[in-house]
C-alpha cells in the first residue's frame, strides 16, 4: 500500500490544566485513506481528533504544544485563520446535531458562511451532497422541513453532507456511529468507504470490529501516549507492542 502523508503531527502535547492529555505524539496520517484512532475511553482519542480542527481551543485552560502540518503549513500557528483550518476538516460528532433550521438550510449553512448567495448554486450543492450521502431520495420532497424531524440515522447522514458541502479535504469522525442503530451505522460505514476515494478520513472508534472493517491505517492510543501505529492489517494481525496485543484481544479496555 502506498501511503502519502496528508497530515503530519509532530511532538503534539495537549494539557487540560495540569492533566497531560496527549504526550508527545508524532505520526503521519495518510492521504485518501481511512485512519482509525483506537484505544480505551478517556485516553485522548477525541482530543487528538479535536486538535486536528482546533476545536480543543475552546476548552477552558487548554494548552497545546507541537506542530500539526497540513500541506507543510502548521495549523497550530496562532497567526493562522482558525476558520480556514476548520473549513478543511468536516466533523462528524458522536450524536448528530442538526442545526436548528431546515434540511436545506443545514446543507447550505457552510457555503453561505463562506459567502455563497447564488440560489441556483446552493440548490445544486444541496442536491449534490444529499445524493453523496444517499439521503436525497428520502428528503427531496421536504427540504424545507426542520432537520430535527429526521430519524437519527438520517440526521447523521445529513450532518455528513453538511460537512462535505464546505468541500473539506479531511473528514473527522468522532465515534460517528455510536448513537446509531446497526442499519444506520452500516449506512455511514458504506459512505466512508466510498468517500475515501476523495477525502482523507480520520475516525475515532472504540468498536474494534468497525476499525477492522474500515481502517487502512491505525493509531493505538493508551493514556495519552501513541503506543503503536501502522497499516491496519499489520497492527491487527501482527501487533508489535504487548499493550496493543492485549487491547486487541480484549484483556485491557
Amino acid at each position, binding site marked *: 500500500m502506498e501511503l502519502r502523508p496528508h497530515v503530519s503531527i509532530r511532538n503534539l502535547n495537549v494539557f487540560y490544566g495540569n492533566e497531560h492529555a496527549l504526550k508527545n505524539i508524532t505520526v503521519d496520517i495518510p492521504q485518501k485513506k481511512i485512519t482509525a484512532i483506537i484505544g480505551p475511553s478517556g485516553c485522548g482519542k477525541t482530543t487528538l481528533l479535536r486538535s486536528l*480542527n482546533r*476545536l480543543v481551543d*475552546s476548552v*477552558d*485552560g487548554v494548552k497545546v504544544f507541537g506542530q500539526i502540518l497540513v500541506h507543510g503549513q502548521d495549523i497550530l500557528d496562532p497567526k493562522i485563520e482558525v*476558520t*480556514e483550518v*476548520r*473549513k478543511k*476538516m*468536516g*466533523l462528524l*460528532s*458522536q*450524536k448528530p*446535531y442538526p*442545526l*436548528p*433550521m431546515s434540511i436545506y438550510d443545514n446543507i447550505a*449553512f*457552510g457555503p453561505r*458562511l*463562506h459567502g455563497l448567495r447564488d440560489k441556483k448554486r446552493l440548490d445544486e450543492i444541496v442536491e449534490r451532497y444529499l445524493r453523496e450521502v444517499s439521503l436525497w431520495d428520502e428528503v427531496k420532497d421536504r427540504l424545507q422541513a*426542520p*432537520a*430535527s*424531524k429526521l430519524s437519527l440515522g438520517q440526521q447523521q447522514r445529513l*450532518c455528513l453532507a*453538511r*460537512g462535505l458541502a*464546505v468541500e473539506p479535504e479531511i473528514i*473527522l469522525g468522532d465515534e460517528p456511529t455510536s448513537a446509531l442503530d446497526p442499519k444506520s451505522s452500516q449506512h455511514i460505514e458504506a459512505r466512508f468507504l466510498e468517500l475515501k476515494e476523495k477525502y482523507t478520513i480520520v475516525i475515532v472508534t472504540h468498536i474494534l470490529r468497525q476499525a477492522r472493517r474500515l481502517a487502512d491505517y491505525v493509531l493505538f492510543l493508551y493514556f495519552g501516549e501513541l503506543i503503536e501505529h501502522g497499516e491496519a492489517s499489520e497492527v491487527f494481525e501482527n501487533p508489535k507492542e504487548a499493550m496493543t496485543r492485549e487491547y486487541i484481544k480484549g484483556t485491557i479496555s
Partner: protein
Amino acid sequence: MDTSSSSLSQSQLSQPLPSDQTAALHGQPQPALIRLLQGSRLIKDKLAAASMLFLTIGSSLMIFLIALQLYQRSRPILAMKGLAELLFSTSWRPLRGEFGFFPFIMGTLWVTAVAVIIAVPLCLLTAIYLSEYAPRMVREWARPLVDLLAGIPSVVYGLWGILVIVPLIKNYIAPAFGTFSTGYSVLAAGMVLAIMIFPVIIHVSVEVFGSIPYEMREAALSLGATGWQTVKYVVLRKAMPGIIAAVVLGLSRAFGETMAVLMVAGNVARVPSSLLGPAYPLPALIANSYGEMLSVPLYDSALLLASLILLAIVLLFNILSRLILIRVERNIQ
C-alpha cells in the same frame, strides 16, 4: 380506590422482603403489623398527593379569585360609565366624577416599552458574552453580581433614580436635545426599570444559552463559522423561545413595578407626549391614591378598576407571548 390499594399491598407482601427486613422479622412473621406499616405508608402517600393537589388548585385559582374580587369592587363605576369612556377618555378629574384611564394606561405602556427597549439588547449582549465568550473566572464572578441586582429593594432603585438619573436627564440629556425637562420623566422611569429587569432577563437568557448542547456550536464552528456567526445563526436561533420567555418575565415585572417608577416618573395625569415629559403609570396611581382620597365618590371603585386594567394588560401580554412562543417553537426545531 380502596380495593385497588389493598390489592396492591397484598401483592407487595407476596414479594420477598429486602434481606434486612426478613432478618428482623425472622421466626415470627407479622403480616398484620406489616400491613399496618404498608398501609400507613400508602396513606401518607395519598395524603401528600392530595394536599399537593389542593395547593396546586388553590394557587392556580388565585388569579381568578383576585380578578373576581377586583371586578366585584369596580362594578359601581362600571355601572355608572361606559367601559370605552373609562378606557379611552383622557380626562381625569375625580372631583367632577370624570375618570378617564387613558393617560395612565399610556403611561404604563410608555414606561414599560422604554424599559424593555433599553434592557433587551443590553441584556442579550451581556448574556451572550457570559455564556459564549467569558472565561470561567469572569463568568463565576459576574453572574452572582448580576443576580444581586434582583435583591436590591425597589425603593433603593427609586432613590438612586432621583439622585442619578433625574439630574442626568435634567442637566445633560434634555439640554442636549434643546429642550427643558424636570428630569422626572418617562425616560427616567424607563431607565430605572430597565436596570431593575436586567437580572431577570440576563439570568434566564444565560440559563437558556447554557441548555443548548455544546456540540451544536461545534457543528457550526467546524464548518468554519466564527464565534459571532455561531451565536447569530445557531445559538440565538435555538434560544429564541427561551429569550422570548425571558423578555416576558422582565416585561411582567416592569408592568407591575410601582415604587421606583412612582418616585421618578413625574406622576402627571396626562398622556405622555415625549420621552422627556412626565408619565403616570397605573401602579403609581393606585399606590399614590389608595386610602387617601376615598371620600371622593367612586374613587375607590375607580382605583380597583385601575388594578383590574393592570391585571388585564399583564395577562394580555402573557397570552400574546405564549402564542408567539408556540409559533416560534414550531418554526425552530
